[in-house]
């Protein structure tokens, strides 16, 4: 700074006036330095993923607790945009920027649950119980209602059980789901493309 304008001059004078007025008395506040908050991501594990919401398909970086060592159990603690991604270039919308609260939502389901006919509450059941019971119900319905032929035509369809597939599940999930559903002869099969 070569020159000092009038305003700065007054500012500096005022500072000197107030400082010096008491500095003479030997009174000065204690040294008070402070540092910025520690950068919290320094050694976390970075995992690349894709935002699960809309179809822009933004790249995200998930930061997991721990450096990947076997004894450290990863928990995602922060998510931000992937700056390398050609579409979002590091940006995220209010939904993508809040993904951390999706992963850790108190409404995440943690155990298989069952609601009995007429009941007004959930009960926790085991995976084995749940899957066995569903398999039994499906087979019983299929065996009872499968249509092999109608008016002499082979149709091999099962119409009394239907399925809605997710619209945010992976291609791999979708592919396997489709393969299984058609092998059962199911036709009442749709996804969220329409709504």
């Amino acid at each position, binding site marked *: 700074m070569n020159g000092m304008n009038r305003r700065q001059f007054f*500012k500096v004078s*005022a500072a000197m*006036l*107030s*400082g010096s*007025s*008491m*500095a003479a008395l030997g009174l*000065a*506040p*204690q*040294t*008070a*330095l*402070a*540092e*910025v*908050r*520690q*950068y*919290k991501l320094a050694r976390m594990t970075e995992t690349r993923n894709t935002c699960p919401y809309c179809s822009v398909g933004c790249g995200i970086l998930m930061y997991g607790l721990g450096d990947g060592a076997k004894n450290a159990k990863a928990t995602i603690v*922060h*998510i*931000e*945009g992937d*700056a390398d991604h050609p579409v*979002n270039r*590091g*940006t*995220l*919308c*209010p939904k*993508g*920027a*809040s993904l*951390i*609260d999706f992963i850790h939502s108190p409404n995440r389901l943690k155990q298989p649950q069952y609601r009995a006919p007429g009941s007004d509450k959930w009960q926790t059941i085991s995976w084995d119980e749940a899957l066995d019971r569903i398999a039994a119900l499906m087979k019983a319905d299929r065996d009872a209602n499968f249509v092999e032929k109608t008016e002499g035509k082979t149709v091999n369809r099962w119409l009394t059980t239907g399925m809605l597939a997710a619209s945010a599940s992976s291609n791999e999930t979708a592919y396997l789901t489709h393969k299984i559903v058609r092998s059962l002869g199911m036709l009442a099969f749709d996804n969220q493309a329409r709504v």
Partner: protein
Amino acid sequence: MALQSLDIKRRSATTSPTPSVREPSVGAVAKLIDVSKCIGCKACQTACMEWNDLRDEVGTNVGVYDNPADLTEHSWTVMRFAEYETPQGDLEWLIRKDGCMHCEDPGCLKACPSPGAIVQYANGIVDFHQEHCIGCGYCVTGCPFNVPRISKKDHKAYKCTLCSDRVAVGQEPACVKTCPTGAIEFGTKEVMTEHAQARIADLKSRGYANAGLYDPAGVGGTHVMYVLHHADQPTLYSGLPKDPQISPAVSLWKGVAKPLSMAAMALAALVGFFHYMRVGPAETSEEDERNAEKEVSHE
């Protein structure tokens, strides 16, 4: 160098000089908010809360898109939505990201009585250090933009740090990184000012004759600047002050009044001292006692 991880330019309530030899060769940093690109998506709000580990209350809707309705100790930035009908009868939805402006001449720092509770780094960021904050709220009175908020929980003052922790390691603030449309950008103040000129030229070409940069001189300029389509009427943007200044009351109180009143009080004491030295005490003598006795006995 003791603790700080960014060079400090100014500290609140500190009379001794701050180490000031180091100056960033590229000048200070700035965040540029291009209101004409902003779609009010609030990604900056959630990214801010996410990065800074803040969660505000789930509030209510009072008939506007503004949520949370105002800045709080948990919401260091909020979007303010204003519906404006132009004289031509067209509608404009003016959406402004509100938050700390990081004034070059920060009123909060000036008003703060607690040493080191508010600092200004050499890069221009004005940061609150809550461990030094005593919760008096003077920063609130000092701020021309009504930004700092005092927590009901710990009675300390909070506001945007411009993600000083990210900037310190060379990253941009969380809101800047996340902004989907690039309405928030970050760089040196010089680069941001230049970039703003290009944006203003574009806006002028699209019919916004009064487009301009908001970098108010009344507070020495700011390290958060706006590109406005109607720079001549900043108050259209949910009351952005036209010519913000530190309140004269605060300037008086935390400015010249401070040394003058100190001097006056010291003077009062000194006058007494010298009076005593020169004139001496007003003593009651034996004679006064006798006179008193005499007066009584005469009656």
